[in-house]
């Protein structure tokens, strides 16, 4: 496989979003969508892969509607999906604060925040549904923060001017996920969901052009099994772990989406990755993952580095006039609350200048001294206590006394499987929801919008749109293991695992993953250049070639084998990484989380090039040079403007 080359194919378009005023499109679509007779729903089987916010809510809701759901997660319990780690909050256009918020404003903010690379119809629907999500979660018993009057509390988040973020201390993701997990548990108990925990999807079964099932591996016994259904829903999350070090969970992986891509689903905007500015810096080569701290910290913390290069004095000994509060200096109106990509890049720049702090100079200070002086320690503790505790535990430093050290880390992937307005991929019958798809965030995601999108897709969008597909395919021919398409997929899967086990080389899976991650962080991280990306595109095939020559996976495939799980995921990272770099190379503009050094304004800000790149890049897998299908993006309601935070 050699990716440096690609060709441009026919454009692609979303054919499902109705025409007409944007505020009516979702209603129109729901009305036009065909319905499945309630009595017939139990005859339809739907596979859902993943049990995070998107998968958990989709599984529960589809089962409530009467479908027979077969659900999978690689964790030992559906409750442990990585959505659980989201801290900050969830946006909703409730306007409870009477501060001028509205569905249209949330829509506007999201399109603008995504730097005009998202589809307007999808984003507007997301904003509309946001209000229903809060109602749904409250009804499930999600313990959102409340005020003394008993009403829900909100806060403003990520530089947005309205207070629309609902939260549950620093554990919003956990509480929302438990709500979805409980709803799912109810359906498991009722026999409507057949739950397969510790079972990982390894490939997609496509029969006669339609997604009809998956191949999965029981992680305890190693048994490979096939599961068939009338539709397959991927809710398997993002691919940030391509970078090795990220804020993703250790086992979050790209296998489900990548295998689906290899079976025909287009992969859109793979280069759109979000680097989060407020993570705890790494401490050494042993680092296995990075820990994010909610960016709400930037509401009250001030970011600075020493003015002088190589200043190794402790923070307390650096006088005020020798500190550079660089975000406040460069962006006076937004200060420390500039969008994530700007804050991240600025941190990289000052560290590249040699002004970084902490071990290796890969960090900047986030200082609460002023906040403590202004509000008092108790108020700071009430607001950020759990984050401070977490920081203190990891670094053994007391953030009430010495400033925190932070550094950016890969956090979220806006790219994903290309889906239409119905969240259907280019493989009929294959749907992708949550972070696994590319749909709503464009080139950059606003804070507190990931939870919103996952739940919107799972609770409301997919359960409505999948009806249309199932109604149009009322009778599916039964598929068995004897079908040639199934045999082929099974054989490929078994061969791949067998090969991994048989190489018996001299390098561990982690060593390859780390090497790949370093290449990606260096060349496809916060700032990208054509030259760097070409280097990465040369290096990745080399690593891949070496992987298949030198990988060592102990044990067998017929047992609980975490090394085999890991190695098999790395196989897919090694292929996906290449597509990410190719997409980044092709997109010769800076937009959102994708910053090309060649495309800057005279004062060093990201320069979008709308005339050439106002499209979503949907890549088709061919086995050799991939084919790029462009989906032109039209902006009827929010007119593209160059972002300005100065």
């Amino acid at each position: 496989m050699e990716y440096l080359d690609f060709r441009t194919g026919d454009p692609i378009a979303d054919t499902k979003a109705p025409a007409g005023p944007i505020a009516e499109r979702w209603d129109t679509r729901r009305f036009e969508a065909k319905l499945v007779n309630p009595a017939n729903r139990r005859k339809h089987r739907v596979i859902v892969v993943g049990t995070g916010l998107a998968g958990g809510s989709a599984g529960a809701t589809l089962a409530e509607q009467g479908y027979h759901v077969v659900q999978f997660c690689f964790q030992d319990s559906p409750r442990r999906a990585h959505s659980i780690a989201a801290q900050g909050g969830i946006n909703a256009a409730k306007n409870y604060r009477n501060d001028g918020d509205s569905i249209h404003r949330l829509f506007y903010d999201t399109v603008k925040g995504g730097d005009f690379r998202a589809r307007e119809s999808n984003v507007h629907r997301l904003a509309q549904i946001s209000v229903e999500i809060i109602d749904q979660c409250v009804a499930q018993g999600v313990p959102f923060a409340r005020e003394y009057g008993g009403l829900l509390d909100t806060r403003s988040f990520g530089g947005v001017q309205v207070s629309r973020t609902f939260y549950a201390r620093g554990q919003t993701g956990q509480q929302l996920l438990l709500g979805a997990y409980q709803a799912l548990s109810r359906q498991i108990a009722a026999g409507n969901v057949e739950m397969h925990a510790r079972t990982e999807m390894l490939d997609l079964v496509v029969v006669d052009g339609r997604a009809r099932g998956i191949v999965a591996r029981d992680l305890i016994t190693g048994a490979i099994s096939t599961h068939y259904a009338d539709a397959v829903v991927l809710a398997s999350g993002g691919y940030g772990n391509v970078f090795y070090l990220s804020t993703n969970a250790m086992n979050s992986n790209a296998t489900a989406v990548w295998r689906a891509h290899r079976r025909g689903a287009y992969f859109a905007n793979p280069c759109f990755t979000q680097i989060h500015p407020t993570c705890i810096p790494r401490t050494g080569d042993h680092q296995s993952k990075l820990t994010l701290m909610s960016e709400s910290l930037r509401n009250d913390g001030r970011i600075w580095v020493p003015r002088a290069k190589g200043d190794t004095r402790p923070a307390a000994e650096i006088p005020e006039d020798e500190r550079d509060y660089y975000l406040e200096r460069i962006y006076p109106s937004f200060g420390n609350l500039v969008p994530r990509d700007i804050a991240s890049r600025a941190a990289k720049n000052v560290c590249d200048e040699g002004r970084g702090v902490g071990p290796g100079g890969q960090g900047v200070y986030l200082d609460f001294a002023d906040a403590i002086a202004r509000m008092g320690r108790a108020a700071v503790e009430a607001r950020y206590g759990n984050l401070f505790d977490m920081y203190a535990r990891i670094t053994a430093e007391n953030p009430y006394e010495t400033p925190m050290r932070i550094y950016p880390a890969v956090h979220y992937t806006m790219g994903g499987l290309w889906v239409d307005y119905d969240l259907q991929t280019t493989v009929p019958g294959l749907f992708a929801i949550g972070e696994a798809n590319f749909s709503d965030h464009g080139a950059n995601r606003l804070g507190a919008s990931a939870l919103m999108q996952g739940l919107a897709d799972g609770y409301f969008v997919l359960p409505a749109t999948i009806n249309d597909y199932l109604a149009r395919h009322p009778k599916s021919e039964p598929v068995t293991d004897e079908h040639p398409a199934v045999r082929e997929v099974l054989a490929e899967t078994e061969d791949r695992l067998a090969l991994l086990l048989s190489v018996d080389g001299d390098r561990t899976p982690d060593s390859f993953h780390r090497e790949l991650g370093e290449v990606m962080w260096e060349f496809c991280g916060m700032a990208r250049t054509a030259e760097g990306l070409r280097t990465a595109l040369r290096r990745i095939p080399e690593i891949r070639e070496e992987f298949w020559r030198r990988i060592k996976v102990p044990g067998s495939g017929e047992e609980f084998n975490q090394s085999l799980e890991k190695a098999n995921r790395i196989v897919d990272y090694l292929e996906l990484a290449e597509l990410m770099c190719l997409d980044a190379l092709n997109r010769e503009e800076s937009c959102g989380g994708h910053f090309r050094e060649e495309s800057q304004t005279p004062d060093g800000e990201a320069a979008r090039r709308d005339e050439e790149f106002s499209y979503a890049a949907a890549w088709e897998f061919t086995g050799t040079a991939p084919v790029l299908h462009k989906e032109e993006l039209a902006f009827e309601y929010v007119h593209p403007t160059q972002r300005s935070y100065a």
Partner: protein
Amino acid sequence: MKLNLRVWRQRNSGAEGAMATYEVDGISPDMSFLEMLDTLNEELILRGEDPVAFDHDCREGICGACSLVINGDAHGPERTTTCQLHMRSFRDGDTVDVEPWRASAFPVVKDLVVDRTAFDRIIQAGGYVTAPTGAAPEAHATPVPKAAADSAFEHAECIGCGACVAACPNGSAMLFTSAKVNHLNVLPQGAPERETRVLDMVAQMDAEGFGGCTLTGECATACPKGIPLPSIAAMNKEWLRARRKVK
């Protein structure tokens, strides 16, 4: 620094297990306990030996996957999850025992990995509010007194790791079950199913083969999220109340 690790090794649920000794060198105090095990596993793989299997995922103390008993303490000497335990809590040359959660309701899957699906079945028995998607009233229709909301949150912090069961000399799951029962039972949204919830969840808990509670308090001491011991009394109260109300 250097540690003398004694780790429980067991091939699968049917096999006999035993403690095996490993020397791990070059440990940085900034490593997490799991990163220290990663280092050991890298060495074991290169030596052609089976690496130590252990559950882990988020490594930021929230998913509840990690589950090691370290020197007899669930999650080790600090009050946190194993993934957030750092090697600075140990001294050079220490001998450290690493074992899986021990409870007959949590059978060992391999090495340090146990099967905690019993917890899922306790939730399935009633740890939810029946609120089908789309049927929810406007979120502000029912204000929730802040005290109730805070109490619900305090209990909802449970991450389902099972440290309470591992620490309990009786292998009891009362703290886990009470956390979930109380989370939903103090909220107005949970009120309609208040009685059936506690009765069914306790019945499932007992059916799973967890031991009874003798209020030793070990569970609350081990809990990385600080679910308080009085949770258990609160659930007992709910249970007795439900017994009176449900015939």
